[in-house]
Each structure stands twice: as structure tokens, then as C-alpha cells.
């Protein structure tokens, strides 16, 4: 370990440079958002960008949405300190896209308009199904949002050298306010451009760092692995030196329970993506099902490449920075990628990577907010409360108010959760999406007999079981790493509920459907099936 890295652990790079590059990002993106925001004249523009993005543009934006700070900092960090088990995460996140590509994206684009609930309620009873879908949309988005905002606090401490609680809260508030501005002015068009810019910066930055790491080791990946293991083996941090970081087991390998936990996590990751409302809503930003397909192909290529980069970066951070330095830094394992950037390219590269990490939080939070607020306006307000007797302009107005409320709530929760161990919230968001949303999406697209009772049992059953199991899991109480370490009311042994709640939701969908005589409206069933497969009747792009 060299002298520079030791210094870096205390004070990383030059906070002024980090802030400067971030401010430049904000200024450029705000300028673009204000320019495209002028086009937000109607609801289709505000909620979907007029269905007028191309497949590649949307694919890049999806990658921007998906590669959150948790993906970038979290996975690189997990590989740096746990090795292979971090890599397992990224594989689940990637393979999951095949579910979206093969089963969901195109049929969803053909059937829906603005939200996930459009598809789920198409041939079922509108009000109860929309309410259930909106409830789970907002739950998933809130968990995801909270995880991003809470992570912002740690990042502030690390990158801007701000350690006071009040000052950190102020930065979280600034991030939240910026996000609200993006959403209000830019709508889906502006948010999409922010995602695109951020994705390009993030992926280019990661690619550049990967090349630097590979160059240091003469393009020999085996040498990187060897050096990483060597650094881990001589680490002085308690419990680290005994890890075999080249094989699975360092994080999840100790007991049978933790092995089943890994399996449970794997199931939730692979089935969760195609049920994430903010990912699903992105499919409406393109004009046709074919463009939706192209979006996913671009997303798979970019996300796949990115996870291969993080594999090199994670082991590279272990080899070049070392687990001791990483774990002593303010953000612990989340600081692996920034520390590596500093090691490789000094202050400037660190500044760029830091700015990208902030931009990531900002962009992902904006995407979540527009999804949740669209669902509230379109599904709850317009459909459930007002029985469709509202204009689309009114829906946009309600959605904007909701976005402000959600933004303020996100700031408040982010400040409260600052420093809390809420990393499990992202995994929980995937588990809820896989339990509450995916079964109903699949059934309503592929099973003609599926009916309202099946949908409600599956959605509420999946949602409630998921949340109850997590409340009574070791992630919340009863362990040193719990959210509430001093209390112990856990009885469910796993931290990941997916292995129970996902099959339960699929089964409830079948039992609910078959126990009801309701076979639906044959005309609506025919319309949905024909529309989903051929594109007849699908929403059209509003401009080119």
C-alpha cells in the first residue's frame, strides 16, 4: 500500500474539483432539461416523451436508470472486499433482462399507455386492479428512492469531505430539490435526457478505468486476480484475510441459512427487473414494440459490458488499493471505486467519477419520482378517485404536485436514513417487484382465463408477504448488522424474502383465478391479446 492511498483514505482528492465537475454536470443537464421541457404541452409528452424516443436512445436511458449508485459503487465495492460473491449480484441483474426482453417489453408497449397498471387492468376490473398496481408501484419506488437518498449521505462524506450531520443534510436537500426541478420542468423527456447523459458518462468512465487497470497488469486478468487475493490475504482488518475472493462463499458461504439466503436473493434479482415500474414505464417512451425490443437489446449490451467492467474494477480495487484502505474509508466498501479512480488518475479522474456517482443518484431518483407520481395521477387520481372524469392536463397537474410531495418526502426520509444500514432496500425493491408485479404481468399477458380476483390475490399477497417477512427478518432486527440492532423481534431466518413470497404470489394468482367464476369479458380479452401481439390499437408517437 502506498503513501498516496493512505492519505486518500482520510481526505480524498480535492473536494472543490469534485463539486466543480458535479456543478458542470448540473448546469449542462439543466440547460437541456429546460430546452426540451418547452415541448411538455400535453400528457403524452409529460409522461412518455411523446412515445418518440428511438430504441437506442431509450436503451441508453434504461441503462442509466438501472445502473444506480448501488450498482456502480455497491457491486465494485462488494467484489473488492468479498470477491466472487459481488460478481454473483451482477449476473442476476443482467440475466434478469432476458425476462424483460422475451416476455414483457414488446407486449407491454403494445398494450399500455403511461403506467404498468394500464396493462394489468386492461381486461380486468379497473378500480381495484389499478389501486393494487399503484400501491405496489409506489412501494417499490419508495424503497428504491430511500436507498438512493440514504446512500447520498455516505457519498457526501467521502467525496466532498463534509462530515457534519447538518451539512450532509443540506447536500441531500440540494440533490432532492434539483431532482424535483428536473421532473417538473423536463417531464419524461427531460428525465430521459438526464439518464442518457449520465449513462454515457458512467459507462465511458468505467471503461476508461478498466483499460487503466488492465494496462497496469499487462492485460493479464489472472494477474489482477492473483494480486487481489494477495492483498486480501495480508489484510489486517478482522475477518478479511481468511477470505478466498476468487471463489464464491466469502459473503454467503458460512451457514446453510446464508446459502439459502443467496438463492433467495438470486431469484428476486432475476425476476424483479421485469416488474420494476420505473423500468416498465421506459418502454412507453418509444413509438413501437420493435423499438421497445431494440431498447432492451441496447440495455443488455450496455449493462452487460458495464458489469464486466465492474468485475475488473472490483478486483482491481482490491489489488491496487487493498481491502484495509477501502474498509477504513468513510463510505466503507462503497468507496472502492472512487479510491481506485484516485489511485489511477488522481484528482481529476476522482472528480469525474464522483460527479458521475452524484449524477447517478440524481438521475435515478428523478426516474423513480416521475414513475411514482405518474402512477398516482393516472391510476389513483384519474381512475380510482375521479372515475376517468378528468382531462389529461389535469392528470399532469396532479402528477406534478405529487412529484413535489414525493420529492420533499424523499429529502426528509433521506436525511433521517442517512448513515442507516438500508442497503437491503434495493434488494427488497426487487423482491417486491418480483412478488407483487411480475406474476400478474405474466398472467395477464399470457393466460386468457386470468381474472380480477387472481390479480388482487397475487398482487396483495406478494406485496404483503414480502414486507411482513422483511420486517421479521434479521435485516431489520436481531443481528449486529440489522437496521435496529438493539431489538430482536425476528422469526424469519432469511434476509431475502423472495424464495417464499415469489412462488406464493404465483400460486395465489392461480388459486384466486380458478376459485372465481369470473371469466372476464371475451371482447376485452380478444382486444388485449390481438393488440399485445400485433400492435393494432397501440399508442402512437406524437411527434418525430
Amino acid at each position: 500500500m502506498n503513501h498516496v492511498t493512505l492519505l486518500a483514505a482520510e481526505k480524498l482528492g480535492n473536494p472543490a474539483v469534485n463539486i466543480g465537475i458535479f456543478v458542470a454536470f448540473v448546469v449542462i443537464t439543466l440547460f437541456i432539461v429546460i430546452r426540451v421541457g418547452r415541448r411538455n404541452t400535453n400528457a403524452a409528452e409529460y409522461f412518455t416523451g411523446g412515445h418518440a424516443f428511438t430504441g437506442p436512445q431509450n436503451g441508453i436511458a434504461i441503462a442509466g436508470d438501472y445502473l444506480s449508485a448501488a450498482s456502480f459503487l455497491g457491486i465494485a465495492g462488494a467484489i473488492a472486499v468479498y470477491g466472487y460473491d459481488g460478481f454473483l449480484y451482477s449476473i442476476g441483474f443482467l440475466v434478469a433482462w432476458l425476462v424483460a426482453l422475451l416476455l414483457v417489453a414488446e407486449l407491454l408497449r403494445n398494450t399500455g399507455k403511461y403506467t404498468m397498471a394500464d396493462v394489468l387492468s386492461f381486461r380486468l376490473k379497473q378500480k381495484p386492479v389499478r389501486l393494487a398496481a399503484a400501491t405496489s408501484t409506489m412501494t417499490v419506488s419508495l424503497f428504491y428512492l430511500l436507498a438512493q437518498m440514504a446512500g447520498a449521505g455516505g457519498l457526501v462524506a467521502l467525496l466532498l469531505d463534509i462530515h457534519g450531520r447538518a451539512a450532509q443534510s443540506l447536500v441531500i436537500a440540494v440533490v432532492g430539490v434539483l431532482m424535483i426541478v428536473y421532473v417538473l420542468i423536463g417531464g419524461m423527456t427531460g428525465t430521459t435526457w438526464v439518464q442518457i447523459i449520465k449513462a454515457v458518462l458512467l459507462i465511458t468512465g468505467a471503461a476508461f478505468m478498466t483499460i487503466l487497470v488492465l494496462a497496469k497488469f499487462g492485460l493479464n486478468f489472472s494477474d489482477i486476480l492473483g494480486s487481489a487475493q494477495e492483498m486480501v490475504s495480508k489484510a489486517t482488518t478482522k475477518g478479511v484475510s481468511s477470505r478466498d475472493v476468487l471463489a464464491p462463499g466469502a459473503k454467503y458461504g458460512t451457514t446453510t441459512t446464508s446459502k439459502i439466503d443467496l438463492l433467495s436473493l438470486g431469484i428476486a434479482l432475476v425476476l424483479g427487473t421485469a416488474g420494476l415500474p420505473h423500468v416498465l414505464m421506459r418502454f412507453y417512451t418509444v413509438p413501437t414494440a420493435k423499438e421497445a425490443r431494440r431498447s432492451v437489446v441496447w440495455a443488455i449490451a450496455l449493462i452487460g459490458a458495464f458489469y464486466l467492467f465492474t468485475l475488473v474494477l472490483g478486483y482491481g480495487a482490491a489489488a491496487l488499493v487493498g481491502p484495509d484502505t477501502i474498509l477504513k474509508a468513510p463510505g466503507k466498501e462503497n468507496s472502492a471505486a472512487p479510491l481506485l479512480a484516485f489511485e489511477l488518475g488522481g484528482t481529476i479522474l476522482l472528480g469525474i467519477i464522483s460527479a458521475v456517482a452524484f449524477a447517478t443518484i440524481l438521475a435515478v431518483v428523478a426516474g423513480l419520482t416521475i414513475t411514482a407520481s405518474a402512477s398516482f395521477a393516472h391510476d389513483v387520481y384519474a381512475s380510482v378517485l375521479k372515475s376517468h372524469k378528468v382531462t389529461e392536463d389535469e392528470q399532469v397537474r396532479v402528477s406534478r404536485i405529487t412529484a413535489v410531495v414525493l420529492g420533499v418526502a424523499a429529502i426528509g426520509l433521506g436525511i433521517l436514513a442517512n448513515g442507516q444500514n438500508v442497503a437491503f432496500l434495493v434488494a427488497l425493491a426487487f423482491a417486491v417487484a418480483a412478488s407483487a408485479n411480475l406474476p400478474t404481468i405474466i398472467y395477464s399477458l399470457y393466460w386468457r382465463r386470468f381474472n380480477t380476483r387472481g390479480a388482487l390475490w397475487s398482487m396483495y399477497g406478494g406485496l404483503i408477504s414480502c414486507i411482513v417477512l422483511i420486517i421479521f427478518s434479521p435485516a431489520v432486527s436481531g443481528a449486529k448488522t440489522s437496521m435496529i440492532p438493539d431489538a430482536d423481534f425476528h422469526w424469519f431466518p432469511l434476509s431475502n424474502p423472495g424464495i417464499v413470497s415469489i412462488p406464493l404470489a404465483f400460486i395465489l394468482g392461480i388459486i384466486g383465478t380458478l376459485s372465481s367464476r369470473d371469466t372476464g369479458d371475451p371482447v376485452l380479452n380478444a382486444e388485449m391479446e390481438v393488440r399485445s401481439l400485433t400492435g393494432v390499437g397501440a399508442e402512437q408517437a406524437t411527434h418525430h
Partner: protein
Amino acid sequence: MSTTDIHHEPPPSGADYLAMQASPEFAELRSRLRRFVFPTTAFFLIWYATYVLLGAFAHDFMATKVWGNINVGLLLGLGQFVTTFLITGLYIRFANRELDPRAAKLRAEMHWVEQ
């Protein structure tokens, strides 16, 4: 009928949708799609589940060195990337050849014109 008239066609009625759903061409499109996506989904889910199970329970097997520090676990993990990219490519080829022309023909039969 001239092409300009098509834009003024009324949207398809419920009867049109029922007739299309019952037509053999539509059944053909649906069954082609399902015959591709269901087995492929089953394949990649089983392959992924096998991989995660090995990752959870077969540490020694995964740690078997193959070349230098590259072990079986790493190769299987990279294999997941390869199959994901491969399935994506195969599906694109399948959809362009088998699904898109059929769907376009059915849209034309229902006089649905995209802008």
C-alpha cells in the same frame, strides 16, 4: 380504396378483435412466439438457477483452477454473460424473421396504419 382513406378508417371494433383472435394467422403468430419464448425462458432460468446453486453450495467445485487464477466459477459466471448475449441475438433474429412480418400483415388486415 385509396391510401388516404385508410387514415379515416374507424378503429377496429370488438367484433374485429374477436374475428382476428379466432383467425388461423393470428393463432400461428401466437404459437410461434410462445414456442420460442417459453422454452428459451425455461432454459435460461434453469441454467441461472444451476449457477446460483453451485455458487451457494459447491464452493470447492467453483474454486477449481482452470488456467492461472481463472477458476470454474469465473468461467461459469462469464458463461452466463455469453448465454445472455447469445439468447438476445437469437431472439432478435427470430423476431425480425418470424414475428415482425406476420404482425405487420395482421395490422394491414385490420387496416391499422402507424403514423
